[in-house]
């Protein structure tokens, strides 16, 4: 596994030029995702959350940076590793936590769990758990934008493990052929489950596929949320103004296992530490201290407030009622009426 060089461990340019408020905002958002997931992880080990739980810890800058690059009304379509984008889009931690607890006030009423976060009002369009099968669906959202002229951009997020599967190929083929307003963001965290890239990709550079789709592309290692905002922002602009799709490979790293059940024994020696050493969230915190003159105490206070928010979410989820038994029969078939016909 490529492990970053040590000199990477200095505050990146994009962070240096960012203002204090936006830096603080980005830091808070990333920290909220991390604390939310740490809380969820504990709840999982206590048996309060079940099923599969895939943590985003280490990748937060992508969701937060992307949020800063889009308008409200734009659509985020992602995988089962969806907490980061959900929170960055503004979903309520209470509703998200309750969803994972399988409770009635959950984001989708408790029927979906961790892998299926949907919050239409906040531009969170899922939450899909069959690898690659959301890619044509996302292309369909972009198709609808072009059809209706709603001016929306769709952002389709997938993992490095999803580029080899057919539905991804078909979705990208149609996006390229039909010039759809969409941005494909491949979160390359070096692994699909326990398998490193070398055993899943014929070539390391995923963007080599872009020319075959007639798509523009970009590729970079995440340093901080503003870098992500700027790089993805350019693609969003291209989509919105020119109806041109873009394939972006974002090199990132997850600090936890694939899911809670994965001890991640497959990592190389020192690999995790090297990536932690350039944790985009820590970088952002450092910028607040070194550049914007915030104190440890300031950051601790912020952290405590966020931890309290997430503890609150856990308590809310814990105390929330289960869905009523009849709920399992709802939202399957819609009755036909004059209105919806």
């Amino acid at each position, binding site marked *: 596994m490529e492990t970053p060089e040590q000199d990477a461990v200095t505050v990146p340019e994009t962070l240096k030029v960012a203002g204090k408020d936006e830096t603080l905002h980005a830091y808070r958002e990333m920290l909220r995702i991390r604390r939310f997931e740490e809380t969820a992880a504990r709840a999982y080990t206590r048996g309060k959350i079940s099923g599969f739980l895939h943590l985003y810890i280490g990748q937060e800058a992508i969701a937060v940076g992307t949020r800063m690059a889009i308008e409200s009304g734009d659509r985020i379509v992602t995988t089962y590793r969806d907490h980061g984008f959900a929170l960055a889009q503004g979903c309520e931690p209470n509703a998200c936590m309750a969803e994972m607890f399988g409770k009635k006030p*959950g*984001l*989708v*009423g408790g*029927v*979906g769990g961790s892998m*299926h976060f*949907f*919050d*239409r009002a906040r531009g969170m*369009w*899922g*939450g*899909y758990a*069959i690898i690659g*099968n959301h*890619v*044509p*669906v*996302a*292309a*369909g*959202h*972009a*198709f*609808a*934008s072009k*059809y*209706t002229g709603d001016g929306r951009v769709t952002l389709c997020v997938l993992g490095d493990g999803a580029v080899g599967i*057919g*539905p991804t190929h*078909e*979705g990208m*083929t*149609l996006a390229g*052929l039909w010039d759809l307003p969409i941005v494909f963001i491949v979160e390359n965290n070096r692994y699909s489950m326990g398998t490193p890239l070398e055993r899943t990709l014929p070539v390391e550079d995923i963007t080599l596929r872009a020319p075959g789709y007639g798509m523009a592309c970009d590729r970079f290692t995440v340093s901080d949320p503003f870098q992500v905002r700027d790089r993805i922002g350019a693609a969003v602009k291209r989509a919105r103004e020119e109806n041109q799709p873009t394939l972006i490979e974002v090199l990132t790293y997850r600090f936890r296992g694939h899911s809670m059940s994965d001890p991640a024994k497959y990592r190389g020696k020192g690999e995790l530490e090297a990536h932690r050493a350039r944790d985009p969230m820590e970088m952002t915190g450092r910028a607040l201290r070194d550049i914007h003159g915030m104190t440890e105490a300031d950051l601790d206070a912020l952290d405590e407030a966020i931890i309290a928010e997430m503890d609150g979410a856990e308590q809310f989820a814990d105390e929330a009622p289960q869905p009523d038994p009849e709920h399992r029969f*709802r*939202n*399957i*078939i*819609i009755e*036909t009426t004059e209105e*919806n*016909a």
Partner: protein
Amino acid sequence: MAILQIREAIREAIREEMVRDERVFLMGEEVGHYEGAYKCSQGLLDQFGPKRIIDTPITETGFAGVGIGAAMCGLRPIIEFMTFNFSAVAFDQIINNAAKIHHMTGGQFSCPIVFRGPNAAAHMLGSTHSQAFDAFYAHIPGLKVVAVATPYDAKGLLKAAIRDPNPVIFFEAELMYSVRGEVPDEEYVLEIGKADIKRAGSDVTLLTWGQAVPTSLRAAELAAEPSDGKRPLSVEVIDMLTLRPLDYAAVLASVRKTNRAVVAYHGWPHGGVGAELSDHIQRHAFDWLDAPVLRVCYEDIPMSYAENLEHLTIPQPEQILAALRQVAYV
């Protein structure tokens, strides 16, 4: 009343719904410039333009998924599979996205989409191009499944399917596109979920759908006017029309009257809609049945290309007649 072919009835249904609702579009292979592999979309590209009549590359998973994604945004896609055999490569989109989006999103999104095209055997196309997908799709909660065999039903039910807020699988039949029948001049929409008595009778209930409908009606004629001196039978032929949800009420009403039932259809025997019907009848009309429910369908084999082998594999009127007589002890 106009006399239309089924392909024309389908075309008119699409045309009328596209005129009525801007959100409706047709997407599939060869639907535009080529006007459809079976000419169901003749003239539609000229009338509606390439924005709403969309030719796709050969990417069934891709354009099925695009249709689903567009439906989630409020559009009303009609996705044509050149034949349902090719939906096998899009199976995941149908079972995991189309059928589940509304449920999986807690009702925040719906998926008003129609997947349509010819289903089951045509003539000498071999094993991969002659399959009935009824059993697969009717099994899946979250879908509606329709199969039509007359121009009247085709137009009325396709319009209903296009207006339906749920995903609808709409089965046509390649060999039946030229079948003619009366279609009202004024607009009409039929109700999904209702079976139709195509021929009333009192001795035996014959449940059927799709390509087996004409075969069943022929068998009913043969049973009514036997050329072999056997006792005539009054057969009630019910076209199920909707395979999910099944019109159990219509089925039970007839069987409780005739006390006998045969199910005839195009498809393999192991499980499927045919077994569902006979299971339901034995469960809910147990004390009315004078004979076991019989099924006449494909043999449990892949379809062969050779004409004689294909003919032997597909239900013929004679076999249905034999089943009707067996349950009536004639």
